[in-house]
């Protein structure tokens, strides 16, 4: 397990480093003046000069890269081109909202998706299984921003069950949570379907294995076979998948934040793209990428720990 952790951690770090390299080289790959590209046509020559100095664009690329790495490690993501506020502070303000949104989305997915999948697998080919299949495939197919828009339209504008916009009063947890219900569902709905399908498939696969036949032949109670013998094995790939889910939830969060006018990293980055505020875009993308890498790392490690075959390999 230790060996696996070390390897997996090393890989995660390498991946994040490469991702940063790609991000940094993006502005160098396009022909033309990087500062001009990053700041857009509205920028004055002074601003470009300032940007160059800020990003160290006058130095060789790899020096820039390692400087950048060092800065990131020290928590310095540069400053906002326009307001001159540190990007890390700005992200620090927005990030909790995005994480809360992603977690609520993930919560919906786990709470609804896994039981749905188990139910389908156990009652395979029953009418309810077919209904769940249609529902979950539908959930996967429909884009999250359509769900957000229609949810906003139906529950907030027409029915007025939930507040339409904003994140709720600061400090009022209940209000904040009420504001999270709708966007969270919109973000997580696709994953409800995806998890349901995935759990169903892996459950069915496990249920067909020889050792389950053997457990049946020994007359173990059906419940114990399903929820201990089969689920313990079928849950492993699902756990590993949850980490990947966070990535797509972050993508979905971008839309939910804009549609429900919520604060968050996604909204901040989209605004920055429109104003050509490259340091914020880069900082925002970097932080979400790290968040994604961290979540896949954690879910992989949890899955490995749950599996004695990996856990006991050193």
């Amino acid at each position, binding site marked *: 397990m230790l*060996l696996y952790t*070390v*390897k997996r951690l090393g890989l995660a770090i390498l991946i994040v480093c490469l991702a940063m390299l790609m991000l940094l080289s993006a502005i160098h790959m396009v022909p033309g003046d990087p500062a001009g590209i990053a700041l857009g046509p509205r920028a004055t020559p002074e601003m470009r000069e300032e940007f160059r100095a800020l990003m160290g664009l006058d130095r060789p690329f790899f020096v820039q890269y390692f400087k950048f790495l060092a800065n990131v490690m020290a928590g310095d993501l540069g400053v906002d081109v326009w307001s001159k506020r540190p990007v890390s502070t700005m992200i620090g303000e927005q990030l909790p909202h995005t994480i809360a949104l992603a977690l609520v989305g993930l919560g919906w997915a786990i709470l609804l998706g896994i039981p749905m999948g188990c139910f389908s697998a156990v009652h395979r080919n029953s009418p309810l299984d077919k209904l769940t299949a249609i529902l979950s495939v539908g959930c996967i197919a429909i884009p999250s921003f359509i769900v957000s828009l229609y949810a906003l339209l139906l529950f907030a504008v027409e029915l007025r069950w939930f507040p339409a916009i904003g994140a709720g009063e600061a400090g009022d947890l209940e209000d904040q949570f009420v504001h999270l219900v709708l966007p969270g569902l919109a973000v997580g709905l696709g994953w409800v379907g995806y998890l349901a399908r995935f759990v169903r498939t892996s459950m069915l696969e496990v249920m067909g294995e020889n050792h389950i036949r053997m457990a049946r032949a020994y007359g173990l109670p059906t419940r114990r076979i399903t929820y201990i013998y089969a689920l313990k094995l079928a849950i492993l790939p699902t756990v590993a998948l949850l980490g990947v889910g966070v990535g797509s939830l972050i993508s979905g969060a971008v839309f939910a934040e804009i549609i429900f006018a919520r604060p968050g990293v996604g909204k901040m980055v989209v605004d920055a793209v429109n104003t050509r505020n490259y340091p914020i875009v880069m900082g925002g993308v970097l932080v979400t990428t790290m968040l994604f890498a961290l979540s896949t790392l954690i879910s992989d490690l949890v899955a490995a720990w749950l599996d004695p075959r990996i856990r006991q390999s*050193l």
Partner: protein
Amino acid sequence: MPELLKADGVRVRFRTSGLVNALLKGIADPYIDAVMRVSFGLRQGETFGLVGESGSGKTTLGRAIIGLARAQEGSIAFEGQELVGLKDAQYRGVRRNIAMMFQDPIASLSPRKTVRNAIAEPFRIHGIAKDLGEEARRLLRLVGLHEGFLGAYPHQLSGGQARRVGVARALALEPRVIIADEPTAGLDVSVQGEILNLMNRLQRELGLSYLIITHNLPVVRHVSDRLAIMYLGRFVETGATKDIFAKPAHPYTLGLLAAVPEPDPDKRRDKLELEGEIPSLMNRPRGCEFHTRCPFAQAKCRETAPEHRKVAEGRWASCHYPFPDPADARPVGPAAA
């Protein structure tokens, strides 16, 4: 008689884990020896059997001869031409002379190609311009299948039929040697006999030499002229088949023969010959590698490894204390009955 194929001190090693893994786990030698310095010769028209349990290295040895596994040491010569160290492109010529039949008859045919294409494949690979349809029909006839099979896909064939197609394909380039890996695996007894009879007829008609890799002792007793018994990648005993079955020289051979149940309820055994399991290749025992399971092991066996030495005319064994004489060896197996 001159030897068509000659292996001398062949050693095949595999890397067991990546370099990083080996470093992290502190494994000094991340290699295992699947085949450990074995030597034998195959004569024209002869059938040589490689016998062993799983992990004995018999399949790896077969694959090393046809160049699917790389021999790190030793020499494999076909008609005097050295094969070890040849590049893949140089091996092509060799592969017209040596063909291989794989263990699983159906899985060794490309699942999306018809029988006709499977049989024509060797001609295409070697750029031999012939009437491929006519060749395919001729080869099918040779192995006793009618033309209706030309358009069939592997999954539509029975095990025996697929095995025949495998034989036809192996014969396509008119090879001198055929390496047959478990030619009867997965076949029922009644079909097994047919495949062996077919291979036997082709051997007579075409003057083929066979290297048969198997764990099936009752079968190998009928089809092979000479045998090598393998254990942990080494030859523990070699010699003429009938001699080995009549009077095994190595305790492992004795145990192996005794482990084959005899289909006669009057001859039930009450004693077990071999206990324990085959050790891991990662962790070879010191001294004689068989001593951990040998009922006759003595102090010397735990200390020094025996050489593969001549114990009688045409017989070699890797044992410090081989069973010396036919009279002393207990009769085992149906051949001795």
